């Protein structure tokens, strides 16, 4: 098979579990199935994908039949250890339906602080991506609390994008088909309303990536900095 245009484009997908849930915070399996289909399809089309997903705490609380979301750090950490099992199990189930193999990668926020850890983590991601596997990343909440403290997994997605030198950060915006595409080095992000538009725009962006510009540019440091 011919390789097209060199390196495959890399997309880091940031998911907040609320965008896959109903109003009562229960996981909506249909929405997870839909997401697995879209991402498996993007992978089949020749893109490399990494999924950064929250949801361990929420699913843990559901599993433990807690009446409300846990509030203290320690309750959240315990719920996360229970819920990560549920989270990865659910993702596996739906990705399996599309013959897509996934892997679980749990990172701590200091991964980005040490060069040897960055290199090591990058090697793992590179190997998984070369094998057409979609890594599913979350914070290792049992030993780390950075995400819990921020209550936001964009910083984790950002770190992963930096580690793998992603071309695009893809953000699921709501429980419907609304996504935000954040191309590396672009000031403005692109909002899309449905999955067909999503594929079109991703292809547009990938064809127009300016490699020179990429080398000196980066991604928005926080979710609030993104304009669209």
């Amino acid at each position, binding site marked *: 098979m011919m390789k097209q245009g060199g390196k495959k484009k890399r997309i880091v997908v940031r998911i907040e579990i609320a965008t896959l849930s109903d109003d009562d915070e229960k996981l909506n399996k249909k929405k997870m199935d839909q997401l697995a289909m879209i991402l498996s399809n993007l992978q089949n089309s020749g893109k490399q994908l990494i999924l950064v997903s929250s949801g361990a705490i929420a699913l843990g609380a559901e599993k433990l039949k807690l009446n409300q979301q846990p509030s203290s750090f320690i309750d959240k*950490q315990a719920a996360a250890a229970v819920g990560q099992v549920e989270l*990865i199990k659910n993702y*596996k189930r739906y990705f399996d339906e599309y013959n897509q193999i996934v892997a679980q990668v749990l990172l701590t926020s200091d991964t980005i602080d040490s060069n*040897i850890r960055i290199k090591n983590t990058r*090697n793992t991601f590179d190997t998984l991506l070369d094998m057409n596997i979609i890594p599913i990343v979350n914070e290792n909440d*049992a030993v780390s609390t950075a995400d819990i403290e921020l209550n936001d997994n964009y910083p984790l997605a950002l770190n992963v994008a930096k580690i793998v030198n992603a071309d695009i950060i893809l953000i699921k915006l709501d429980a419907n088909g609304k996504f935000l595409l954040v191309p590396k080095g672009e000031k403005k992000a692109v909002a899309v309303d449905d999955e067909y538009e999503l594929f079109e725009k991703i292809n547009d962006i990938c064809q127009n990536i300016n490699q020179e510009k990429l080398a000196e540019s980066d991604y928005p440091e926080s979710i609030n900095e993104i304009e669209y």
Partner: protein
Amino acid sequence: MDYRENLKYKKRIVVKIGTSTLSYPSGRLNFQLVEKLAFVLSEIRKKGIHVVLVTSGAIGVGAGRLGLTTKPGKLAKKQALAAIGQAELIKIYQKYFEENNQIVAQVLLTKDIVTINKRHSNAKNTLEKLLSMDIIPIINENDTISTNEIVFGDNDTLSAYVAVLIKADLLIMLSDIDGLYSADPKTKSSARIIYIVHKITPRLEKIATNTGTIFSTGGMSTKIAAAKIGGKANIDTVITNGSDPTIIFKILNGENLGTLILADANNANKN
């Protein structure tokens, strides 16, 4: 003093199972064994004993998922297989524990829990919390991000540090042989199992390096080293054959099975 009788009163145990016990020689998982192990540990938990499971097997399961028949050589490949396999492995454990109405949690650790204070207290607090909620934590090394500087290297060592971290009173290491032998049972017919070890002597350590299993990372010497780490923290260790996990019931019932290595303080009491 009957040291075996004492095992009836253990309140917090760490059970460690290795790849060679969990899988067939082909590297594929033995589901019946996992099912039995989940049953046994759930039963013990229902008796009010706190249980932590330290499991290997992610790399083998990952290789199986991809249909690989040879063991990976390169570190990055191993780490990638561990990331695939851990997702499979925890799903399978969850399934079998769920059948016993037992909730489990996944905790992936690196050696940071020994060297960094904040990691140490975070891991300890999380595990304490989980145990107080009657959950069985399932622990493995976070192979995906472990580099040489932060690696436990083998789960025997990891299980000992976990036992120390949660102040367990017993560490049970499930192996593919019946215990520590006086010589290599494969070559010497006079080799006998050592049922009790009062003190880990240099002579004993030498015996351990010459026996054990050739397939696993650990073998006997890492188990003895693990028992030494546990012993300093007043934790007894039993090394036993895990091919039938119901042996754990018998051990906790005081039966003379496997090798019991007494904790340092326990040994001092003898005087």
